[in-house]
């Protein structure tokens, strides 16, 4: 993650987490996207991608892998949240979807306070530096269903609202840091080739998941290859989506509720769906 960039307009340098050039005032970049566009990152990803394709060819799985790549290149960014949170967001387009840091700083939510919490914060600092407070997390999904460990409502985001400010990452970034024993230092040795721009998410999925595709893999298995819920959130397997900046109900395309519709809860869900529909958000 670059800590500073040269403003493309005035050619002066400015630092994270500025969202505009402080010198000329021109709108700035999304820092996570800049990091994913780094030539060294892209080159490393390309090497992983080509190696995965070559391996698939040697197993006669290249056609299926191509099919898988086409599917995941159209995957959606999904955030799973509680009914209450969706209800709040659906109530008005002035309601913002907050990040973990915004919630804890505002005193609305409490940090978990365990070693996982520390790991999460360290991973965010390594990946996003001073921009971590602006990053919203989601996952890639083919069927629009996210990770129920985070809530029974899967919010599918509108691609046109997030593609320019989103990047994707190999897996749960906190788990990634721990598994690879990434050490804190002035210049942390982050392996390259594990993040991609939104437009290149298909490549990252191929690089990561090609070994799970063989010559007999049916296309209806792609969804669970891309995303698999674990017994607890730590064991979830998914491609993480990092979205820079604010989101509202107008960022949503669809909400899929996986919770059972029983008794009075069914009425509450009907009311949420009614409100979502007023903002043009489909619900099912």
């Amino acid at each position: 993650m670059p800590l500073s960039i040269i403003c493309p307009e005035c050619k002066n340098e400015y630092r994270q987490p500025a969202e505009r050039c402080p010198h000329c005032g021109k709108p700035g970049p999304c820092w996570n996207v800049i990091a994913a566009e780094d030539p060294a990152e892209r080159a490393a990803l390309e090497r992983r991608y080509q190696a995965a394709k070559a391996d698939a060819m040697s197993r006669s799985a290249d056609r299926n892998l191509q099919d898988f790549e086409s599917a995941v290149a159209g995957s959606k960014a999904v955030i799973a949240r509680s009914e209450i949170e969706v209800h709040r967001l659906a109530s008005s387009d002035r309601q913002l979807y907050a990040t973990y840091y915004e919630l804890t700083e505002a005193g609305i939510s409490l940090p978990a306070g365990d070693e996982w919490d520390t790991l999460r914060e360290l991973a965010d600092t390594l990946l996003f530096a001073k921009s971590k407070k602006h990053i919203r997390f989601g996952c890639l999904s083919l069927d629009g269903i996210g990770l129920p460990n985070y809530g029974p409502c899967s919010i599918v985001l509108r691609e046109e609202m997030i593609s320019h400010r989103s990047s994707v990452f190999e897996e749960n970034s906190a788990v990634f840091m721990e598994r690879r024993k990434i050490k804190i230092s002035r210049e942390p040795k982050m392996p390259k080739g594990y993040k991609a721009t939104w437009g290149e998410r298909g490549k990252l999925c191929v690089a990561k998941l090609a070994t799970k595709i063989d010559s007999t893999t049916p296309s209806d298995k792609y969804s669970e290859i891309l995303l698999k819920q674990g017994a607890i959130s730590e064991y979830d397997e998914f491609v993480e989506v990092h979205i820079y900046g604010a989101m509202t109900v107008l960022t949503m395309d669809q909400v899929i509720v996986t919770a059972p519709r029983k008794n009075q809860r069914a009425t509450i869900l009907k009311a949420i769906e009614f409100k979502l529909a007023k903002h043009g958000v489909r619900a099912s």
Partner: protein
Amino acid sequence: MDALISGTTGRALLVDVGQLKSFDVDDPSKLVSRRPSDFAYLFGEMRDLRVLENTDIESVQHELKHDSDCALALDLTLISLDPELASEIRKEAIEGLDELLTGRVVESLENILYARPLTEAADLAGASKLSAHARVTRVSALFHRLERYQPVISQVSAAWDTIPTKVFGSYDHQAAFQRVAAREGLFRSLVKTRCDWSKVFVVISNVSRNGHLKHLHDHRKVLQQWAASLIAMGHQFGPGLEAEEQSYERTSRELTPNDLPQPVSQDAEDSPIALPSVHTPETMPAARYLTDLLKQLSPEDQMLFDLTFDGYDAREIAVMLGISEPAVRKRNSRLMQKLRRLVQQGERAHA
């Protein structure tokens, strides 16, 4: 075992010798092992977390069911009041709400609804009409009470807003105090006094018996300021409100005793401290009026007043002062007479 419960998420987290397990209100028999990092995802924004200490699983199930029913009832109430929603959804919400309105749920729901006046956007008239159409008497009675109490709710709420933040210590403390005061029914109790000075005093003096409220930062100062502001506003709502409400309740069908309006509290009715109902002289702010009144008491009487104000009952005061319980009652009675006399003297001087 300790437990955390949240009605809005319908989940409980059991903490037993370092082991974490959760269950959902719909399936309490299914226990799922958890780790601390799951905490945030189990409870969402955690606005309604409640801690149960030294408890057992049956109690946790019972409390979770109650909190979940309360959260559902609040959601359904808000849906039924929402004019933006389709009438069918609002009617369905009203019917669902009626099924949930049993004694404790009614009280908990009113604790929240009476904490702030309804916003202009809330369509109480429409909701009342829909509930009458649906023939759901419990909801009709709830809406009737809510409508009738709106002026008092506004006044209690406005009095709360006059308390300076510095009295609470910080904005965070202020917000926390308000949350607990609403949840524990303090707003509701004050609303039910209809701003009657003597009843306000009794409600406030009973607060110290509430374990949740008495641990809040500077609770005594906050409550004194609140009571003073409420009285200083000067408008006392007559008993007609309650009489009308009870008459309405009697004519409603299928009501249970729990649906009837509760008195301020049993303690309020029986308390030896029942000051005469007076309007504060307009020329003197209520807080100063009260302070000046108490200054005229002897140190012993002031101590007795303080102990009673702090929520100690006659038996407890007797132990603290090393006198008998009847003696405490007798002194309390004398104290009341003195206060009554002082108030009457004040009124005469003001006239």
